[in-house]
């Protein structure tokens, strides 16, 4: 293409910096949100992986046990009998420090010399002067190492003494060295970690003869499937050999649904961004009808026109994507905190580490930004090529052409909506298809928006015309006359608001469901939490003693207990809750189907319950058998019922304590429920119970647990909330930009109105009425669409993601908020243009062609 044709087009763009900036903003914001989510998610998960590497180094495999941990004799057997060299026994336990009661610390017991072979990051970070430190851990009792970062945070120095507090009592330990780590992820991994030798750790935690896991680094030479098989076969039933890669993948799988949902929110922002890009590019093409017509008269071909527009879009895409990536990196730092909080709440503990971005992520963002822009610019570019070579094309003809497109779009919208609904129905268990269904529905309704706007404006015009005369007809007429732009702005706002309403309805339904569930589940008045290590010496006996003492407190009528443990199943460890239930506690179970009359007798003797998520993820039904590894070999347990549980998304099984003790050793309790006499003052009872507790053991009322749980619930959705507001923000920017551009294009028309006597105030009212009407249409339309989105989220996406079923709770406040959001966004977007136009001298406005 000749450079002059390009220059004619480029000069036009440069003369319209507002539109140019708007197009760039659409791309920038869309890309920024997508990459920010990607960075935040990956950084969170990487911090988990890196944290693992900081303490497992080059280990390729790990031998783990259930909650009882591993017998340290396994380590000796593997080392001596099997001749494995790079083995590292580890004992890991959560402890508290008396000096810092608010924080949790991880006590890591290791064999420094055995661990050297795995080159853990903390050991490789030791300087020459510190080379003796690892050895001193072994030779000097009650010594420990901490990272320099932790020392700075807690204002500790070498030789300071710390008091380790566990439910077994307190123990003084001395800091003998500080580890300096240059890698930020490893630094975060060692945050709040106290490294000591394994014997000291066993003494402190009371886990004598026990290990948490054994890390194993396979040499390439000895890496044979037969060796792995022989190790696996040599392990007792309660232990398991897993590949580290599988372990990390399992963690990723665990967060897969969460990641998909977050990425979907990012794509929603990109979709809204695409509407903005489409809007702006259509605007830029429409404004250039005359220019394009003239170029065609001079002999510029259709292909050249198409190339010209696509080339422009490509440049915009690259610039917008570049700024989007930079903005995304900034945004990611804020999101990382929220994502980490959610991962911590639902899945596993991670430290909020630093962000990192890979070339792959940048490549993905560039690809996404460029493709989204080119896709958005395709319709206006094709439309431009259809232009007849003429300079006398009038706007109304263009708009009537667009009305034809609107008719097609409305017909297409029905197709998309039905396709979306069909997908929801037939896509079975796929989360991705569930989300694709939402996107299809949103896109379908967005296509329908301009057509619906025209119908609504007809009615509004009739009404405002009657009420306010000719001037009253102008706002709806302005919306209708520029439907090619106003329709898209309304659609973008509608998508963002309906997604907001949908998510709000889903979250409030979920909140209500969880709240109802908690109220039913928390049958006891007070709950004692016993977080100590389960195989600590005499743990079961001490817990039993505590239970007896609690029962003897005046005012306590009955008790219940639970032990949260892990049992080895056919394909890995299964979380299990072992219950000792009284009559009242049994009312805390919400079964998905009415249970059989004698269900509790069977539960006590031979069967298990499974939670809804467990049933969903493992495709299990009542009546089927669940195979578990016991000390006596594999045993089948009949699934009696499925019950609702929202404490985690992986799910777990529940069995009676009586049944559990038949096959597994007594590990004590994780919690004890206390039922008080009706007239007992709980405020008096609580301190009495507290007096019997040690270390990290605590007592809380059901109210306090309820409130804490609801707080965690809020944290879990903090990132979702943040992202939906981001999408709404992008829509607002879009509406704002579209309206600004519209008003600038109308400068002359508004100048005429001013010339014939319309006051600045009347002009402001007219412009804000127009934008208000746009907001109102978007808001009203987004209510039913939001309802549908919420329905699909609750009954399709969330059920597939987490296996939870929820009741649909209609929160009318959400609907009004959505309506208000759309209205306020549109009104705010109209204020600046209206003020600007009202202040513009009619003389300048009339000069402006």
């Amino acid at each position, binding site marked *: 293409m000749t450079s002059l044709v390009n220059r004619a087009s480029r000069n036009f763009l440069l003369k319209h910096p507002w539109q140019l900036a708007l197009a760039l903003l659409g791309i920038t914001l869309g890309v920024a949100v997508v990459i920010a989510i990607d960075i935040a998610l990956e950084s969170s998960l990487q911090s988990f992986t890196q944290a693992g590497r900081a303490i497992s180094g080059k280990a390729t495999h790990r031998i783990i046990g259930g909650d009882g941990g591993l017998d340290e004799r396994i380590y000796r057997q593997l080392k001596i009998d099997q001749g494995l060299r790079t083995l590292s026994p580890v004992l890991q336990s959560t402890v508290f420090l008396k000096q810092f009661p608010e924080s949790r610390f991880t006590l890591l017991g290791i064999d420094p010399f055995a661990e050297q072979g795995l080159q853990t990051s903390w050991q490789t970070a030791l300087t020459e002067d510190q080379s003796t430190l690892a050895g001193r851990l072994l030779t000097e009792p009650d010594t420990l190492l901490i990272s320099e970062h932790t020392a700075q945070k807690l204002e500790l120095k070498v030789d300071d003494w710390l008091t380790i507090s566990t439910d077994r009592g307190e123990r003084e330990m001395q800091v003998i060295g500080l580890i300096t780590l240059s890698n930020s992820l490893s630094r975060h991994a060692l945050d709040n970690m106290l490294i000591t030798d394994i014997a000291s750790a066993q003494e402190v935690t009371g886990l004598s003869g026990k290990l948490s896991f054994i890390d194993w680094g396979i040499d390439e030479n000895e890496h044979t499937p037969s060796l792995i098989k022989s190790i696996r076969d040599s392990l007792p039933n309660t232990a398991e050999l897993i590949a580290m890669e599988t372990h990390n993948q399992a963690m990723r799988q665990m967060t897969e649904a969460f990641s998909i949902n977050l990425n979907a929110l990012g794509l929603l922002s990109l979709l809204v961004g695409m509407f903005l890009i489409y809007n702006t590019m259509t605007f830029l093409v429409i404004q250039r009808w005359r220019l394009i017509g003239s170029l065609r008269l001079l002999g510029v071909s259709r292909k050249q026109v198409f190339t010209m527009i696509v080339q422009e879009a490509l440049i915009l895409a690259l610039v917008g994507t570049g700024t989007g990536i930079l903005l995304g990196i900034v945004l990611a730092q804020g999101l990382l905190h929220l994502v980490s909080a959610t991962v911590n709440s639902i899945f596993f503990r991670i430290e909020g580490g630093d962000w990192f971005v890979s070339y792959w992520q940048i490549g993905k963002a560039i690809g996404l930004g460029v493709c989204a822009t080119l896709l958005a610019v395709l319709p206006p570019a094709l439309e431009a090529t259809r232009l007849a070579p003429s300079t006398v094309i*009038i*706007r*109304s003809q263009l708009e009537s052409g667009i009305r034809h497109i609107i008719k097609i779009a409305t017909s297409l919208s029905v197709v998309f909506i039905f396709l979306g609904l069909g997908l929801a129905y037939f896509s079975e268990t796929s989360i991705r298809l569930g989300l694709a269904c939402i996107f299809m529905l949103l896109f379908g309704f967005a296509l329908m928006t301009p057509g619906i706007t025209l119908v609504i404006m007809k009615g509004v015009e009739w009404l405002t015309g009657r009420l306010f*005369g*000719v*001037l009253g*007809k*102008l706002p709806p*007429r*302005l919306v*209708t*006359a520029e439907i090619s732009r106003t329709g898209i702005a309304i659609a973008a706002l509608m998508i963002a608001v309906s997604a907001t309403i949908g998510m709000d309805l889903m979250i409030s339904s979920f909140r209500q469901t969880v709240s109802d569930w908690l109220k039913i589940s928390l049958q006891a008045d007070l709950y004692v939490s016993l977080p100590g290590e389960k195989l600590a010496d005499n743990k079961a006996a001490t817990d039993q003693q505590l239970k007896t003492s609690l029962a003897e407190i005046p005012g306590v009528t009955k008790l219940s207990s639970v032990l949260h443990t892990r049992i080895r199943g056919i394909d890995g460890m299964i979380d299990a809750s072992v219950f000792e239930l009284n009559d009242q506690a049994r009312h805390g179970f919400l079964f998905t189907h009415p249970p059989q009359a004698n269900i509790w007798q069977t539960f006590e003797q031979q069967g298990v319950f499974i939670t809804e998520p467990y049933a969903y993820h493992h495709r299990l039904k009542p009546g089927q058998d669940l195979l578990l590894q016991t000390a006596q070999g594999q045993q089948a347990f009949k699934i009696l019922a499925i019950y609702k549980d929202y404490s985690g998304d992986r799910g777990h099984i529940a069995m009676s304590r009586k049944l559990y003790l038949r096959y597994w050793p007594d590990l004590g309790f994780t919690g004890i429920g206390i039922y008080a006499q009706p007239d007992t003052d709980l405020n008096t009872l609580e301190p009495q119970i507290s007096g019997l507790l040690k270390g990290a053991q605590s007592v809380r009322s059901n109210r306090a647990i309820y409130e804490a749980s609801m707080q965690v619930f809020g944290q879990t959705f903090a990132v979702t909330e943040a992202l939906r507001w981001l999408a709404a923000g992008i829509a607002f920017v879009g509406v704002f930009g579209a309206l600004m551009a519209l008003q600038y294009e109308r400068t*002359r*028309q508004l100048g*005429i*109105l*001013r*010339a*014939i*006597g*319309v*006051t*600045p*105030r009347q002009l402001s009212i007219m412009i804000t009425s127009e934008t208000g009407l746009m907001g109102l249409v978007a808001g009203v339309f987004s209510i039913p669409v939001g309802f549908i989105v919420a329905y699909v989220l609750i009954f399709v996406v969330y059920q597939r993601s987490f296996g939870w079923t929820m009741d649909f709770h209609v929160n009318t406040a959400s609907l009004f908020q959505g309506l208000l959001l759309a209205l306020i966004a549109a009104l705010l977007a109209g204020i600046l243009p209206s003020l600007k136009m009202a202040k513009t*001298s*009619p*003389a300048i406005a*009339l000069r402006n062609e």
Partner: protein
Amino acid sequence: MTSAETAISLQQVTKSYWESGLEQTILDNVTLNIRQGELIVLLGRSGSGKSTLLNLLSGIDQPNSGRVNIMGTELTTLPENERTLFRRKHIGFVFQAYNLIPTLTVLENLLLPLELLHRITDTDVDKALNLLDKLDLKPRQDSYPDRLSGGEQQRIAIARSLIHEPAIVLADEPTGNLDLETGKQVLALLDTLVRQTGKTMIMATHSQEVMGLADSVFTIRNKTLVSVEKPS
């Protein structure tokens, strides 16, 4: 000329704009007095300042110095809002590019100046329809402006400028976008309607043919107003 007869009075009016950091004077020390009912023609090349002068007369723009008095009202002392209200009542505008409101129908365009003054009555609608009838445009009352020809649009614009019976009509190159024949028809219509109703009209044009209709002819030369003798 007594003040009672004077419809428009410009006293030592100067108007300049800033352009690319330089002050461009468009009108320098212009003085003009026009009687009620007169038709004044302003001649001059494009960019000579004709439109600027009309903008000053209508109160759309303000001079840098000097006074603009219309029908006894000192426009230069009025704030923006009052100038708008004054314009709404006393001034009718005809533009070269017609400048009808594209989102209003022909009838609605005619009713708009009336609605700005008071609530539309049936009499107003009848009045607008009669005017359209006179212009042979009654069948197009529900059409939107961009469906009309240039001549039709300008006839509607003339009707719009007169419907609220302003004392002064300002026409800025009303035939500039029309062919010769249509231009003549439009001028004849403007002359008839204005003369019939006794309005004062100032018409800016570069067409010499209009001079025959005018009571006085002026031209802007060297940023000031110069009287031109009408051809006999």
